[in-house]
C-alpha cells in the first residue's frame, strides 16, 4: 500500500443488525492529513470513528476493508464515564504519559493548574474534562488523532483552547462535528455522511406590545449544603446569588456563561426540580418546562411516540411530527426505533406542547444537535411563541444560537446575572 498512509478504508460499512450505521465509505489519510466528518446526528459519525479506533461494540457487523498503520489517539465525546472516576486528572494522563512530571506539564500547558490536577473527574467542569481527554490522547503521541465532537458542549473559551491543541499537534486528524465552524478553524477536508443543509435560522418573531409577564424571578439565592459521611452539615459555595429576572410572553431570552456559573441550577429551580434557599419564583399556574442536554433522554424508550406526546399534551396528534420534520406514520412507533436526533426533535416538541403559554427552558438542548435539527426545532418553537405567546429561556454557550434566536442575551457568572 502507499507509503505514509495511516488509515485506509475501502467500501467500509458498519451494521447494527439489519440497520446500516454508515457506508460503504472510502477514506485515506496520510501524515499531516486533516479530515472532518460532517453529517446529521444519527448519520453514523460516532460509529465510524469508533470503528477506526477498534472500539465498536461487539454487536456490530462490518464489511469492507480497513487498514490502520500507526498509533491512534481517540478523543471521545466528553462525558463523565469516559474518564475513570477513581483517578485524579493527573493520574489519568500519567497512566498514558508514563511519568507524572510529563503529565503535569501537559495539563499545565492547557491551563489546568497543579492544584486542579489532583481533582477527580466529577470535581472538574465539562470543559476541563474535555481538555484532560485531549491531553490523554496526545500523551500517547499518536500518529492519528480521532476526535468525536471535541467541542460539543464547551463554552467559547474552552472551545478555543481545545481546537488550539488539536491544531498545533502534528498528528494527522480525523474530527467529527456537527458544526462547520470547527472544520473551518482546523482547515480540514470535509467528508459528509449526509448532504449539507442550509442551517440559517429564521429571525425571532416580534414580541407583542404589553405582553404580560410569564415568569418573574426575585432575588433567588441557593447554596449547596449536604451531610458528609459523618452526617455533619457542610456549607457549600453560592450557586445562585440574588438572581432576579423577568421574562415576558413570546419573548426569548438567551443565557450564557462559563460552566458552573449556575445557569442549570436556575433552570432547574424555575422548573421546580430543585428547591432554593430564599427569593421568589412566579411562573404563573404551571412550572416551566425544562429540556436538558441530551433531550432524547427525556423520552421513555419503552413507549411509542404517541404515548410520549400524549403524556404531555393529551390533544397531541400525528401532524406534530410533520411539523418537526418527521413522518406522521411514526406516530405509533416505539421511541427506541428513532435515532438520537429524531428523538431530540420529539422531546423538544413535546416540551413546547406542554409549556403552552408558559415558559420553555432549553438548557444546552441544542448543543449536540446537528444544524438541520436545530433549524426545524427552532422553527417549531417560534411558531408556538407566536400562536400561544410562549416564553423561552435559551441556555447556551453558542453565541450563534443566542444571536439567532433570542430577543435579548444575558450572561451569568458565579451565580450572578450580568
Amino acid at each position, binding site marked *: 500500500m502507499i507509503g505514509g498512509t495511516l488509515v485506509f478504508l475501502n467500501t467500509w460499512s458498519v451494521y447494527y443488525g439489519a440497520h446500516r450505521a454508515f457506508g460503504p465509505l472510502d477514506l485515506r489519510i496520510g501524515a499531516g492529513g486533516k479530515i472532518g466528518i460532517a453529517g446529521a446526528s444519527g448519520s453514523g459519525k460516532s460509529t465510524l470513528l469508533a470503528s477506526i479506533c477498534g472500539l465498536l461494540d461487539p454487536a456490530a457487523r462490518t464489511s469492507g476493508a480497513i487498514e490502520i498503520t500507526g498509533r491512534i489517539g481517540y478523543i471521545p465525546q466528553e462525558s463523565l464515564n469516559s474518564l475513570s472516576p477513581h483517578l485524579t486528572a493527573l493520574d489519568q494522563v500519567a497512566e498514558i504519559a508514563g511519568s507524572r512530571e510529563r503529565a503535569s506539564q501537559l495539563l499545565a500547558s492547557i491551563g489546568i493548574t497543579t492544584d486542579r490536577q489532583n481533582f477527580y473527574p466529577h470535581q472538574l467542569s465539562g470543559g476541563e474534562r474535555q481538555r484532560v481527554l485531549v491531553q490523554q490522547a496526545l500523551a500517547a503521541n499518536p500518529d492519528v488523532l480521532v476526535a468525536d465532537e471535541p467541542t460539543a458542549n464547551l463554552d467559547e473559551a474552552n472551545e478555543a483552547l481545545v481546537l488550539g491543541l488539536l491544531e498545533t499537534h502534528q498528528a494527522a486528524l480525523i474530527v467529527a462535528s456537527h458544526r462547520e465552524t470547527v472544520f473551518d478553524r482546523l482547515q480540514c477536508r470535509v467528508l459528509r455522511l449526509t448532504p449539507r443543509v442550509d442551517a440559517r435560522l429564521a429571525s425571532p418573531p416580534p414580541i407583542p406590545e404589553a405582553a404580560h409577564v410569564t415568569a418573574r424571578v426575585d432575588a433567588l439565592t441557593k447554596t449547596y449544603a449536604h451531610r458528609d459521611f459523618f452526617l455533619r452539615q457542610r456549607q457549600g459555595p453560592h450557586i445562585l446569588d440574588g438572581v432576579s429576572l423577568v421574562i415576558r410572553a413570546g419573548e426569548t431570552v438567551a443565557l450564557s456563561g462559563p460552566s458552573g456559573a449556575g445557569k442549570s441550577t436556575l433552570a432547574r429551580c424555575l422548573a421546580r426540580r430543585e428547591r432554593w434557599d430564599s427569593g421568589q419564583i412566579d411562573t404563573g399556574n404551571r412550572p416551566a418546562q425544562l429540556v436538558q442536554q441530551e433531550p432524547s433522554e427525556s*423520552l421513555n424508550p419503552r413507549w411509542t411516540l404517541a404515548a410520549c406526546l400524549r403524556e404531555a399534551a393529551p390533544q397531541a396528534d400525528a401532524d406534530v411530527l410533520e411539523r418537526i420534520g418527521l413522518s406522521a406514520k411514526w406516530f405509533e412507533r416505539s421511541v427506541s426505533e428513532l435515532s438520537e436526533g429524531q428523538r431530540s426533535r420529539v422531546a423538544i416538541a413535546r416540551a413546547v406542547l*406542554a409549556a403552552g403559554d408558559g415558559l420553555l427552558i432549553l438548557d444546552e438542548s441544542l448543543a449536540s444537535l446537528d444544524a438541520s435539527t436545530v433549524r426545524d426545532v427552532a422553527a417549531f418553537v417560534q411558531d408556538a411563541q407566536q400562536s400561544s405567546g410562549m416564553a423561552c429561556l435559551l441556555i447556551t454557550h453558542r453565541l450563534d444560537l443566542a444571536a439567532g434566536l433570542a430577543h435579548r442575551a444575558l450572561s451569568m457568572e458565579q451565580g450572578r446575572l450580568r
Partner: protein
Amino acid sequence: MTARIAIAVIVAILIAGPWLYPVDPIAQDRDAANTGPGAHHWLGTDEYGRDLAARFLAGGRWSVLAGSAGTLVALALGWIAGSAAGFAGGLADSLVMAVSEWFMAVPWLYLLVAARAAMPLNLPPRKAILAIVLLIAAINWARPARLARGLVLSLSQKGYVEASRGFGVPAWRILVDHIFPGTTGVLVAQALSLLPRFVLAEVTLSFLGLGAGEPYPSWGGLIVPLRHAYLLRNQWWIMLPVLLMLPFFASFALVSRQLERNYRVSR
C-alpha cells in the same frame, strides 16, 4: 434459550405427572419398602414403600406452587417497600432501610416456632408448611426491598421521569407508567433466583425441628434424607429425585442470570 425450554419441559412433566405416571404417592406398599429402582417403582421406594417417582412428581407440583407463592409474597412486599423508599426518599427512605437492616439481623426462628405451634390442629400439614413458607417470605422482604430501592432511585433520576414530573403527572402514575416497567426485568430475575430457595426452605425447617408435611410429598421433603447422605449410601436411589431437580434449579439460575445481564446492558 435451552434453559427456558428445560424449564418449560420440566413444568410440563410435573403438570402431566398424574397421567404419565398414575401411582398414588402416599400409598404405603410396605412389603416393597426400601427397594431400588425397577419396573414397578421407577425411582425405587422410601422406607414405607412409597413410590419415589410419584412423590417426585406430586411433590414437585406442590413445591413449585408453594415456592412461587413465597416468592410472590417476598417480592411484592420488598418491591412495594423498596420502591416507595426509593421514590419518596428522605425520611421514609432512611426509615425503610433501617428497618430492613433490623429484619436481616433478627433471629426469626422463634416466630416460626411460635407460628407453627399456634396453628389449629386440624390444619392439614401442607397448609401448615405453606403458611410457614409464606411467613418466611414475609420476613425476607428486606433484600428485595434494598434491590428495588436502588433501581427506583436510579430510574427516578432518568430524564423521562423528571420530564413527566414537569408535566405535572401524579406520582402514582409515574410509578406505574415509568418506574415499575423499568424494574420488571430485574424483578423476574429475582423471582427466578428466589423460587428454588423457597422450595429448599423446607430442608432447613426440618433441620430446625419445624417439621415436614408427612405424609404428603414435597421436593424439600425429598431432599431432607440427603442430610444423612453419609448414612444412606447403600440406598443411593434416594438421591435420584434430587439429581432430577438439579437441571430445574440450574436452568432457573441460568435464565435469572441472563435477565440480569440484559438489564445491565440495557442501562
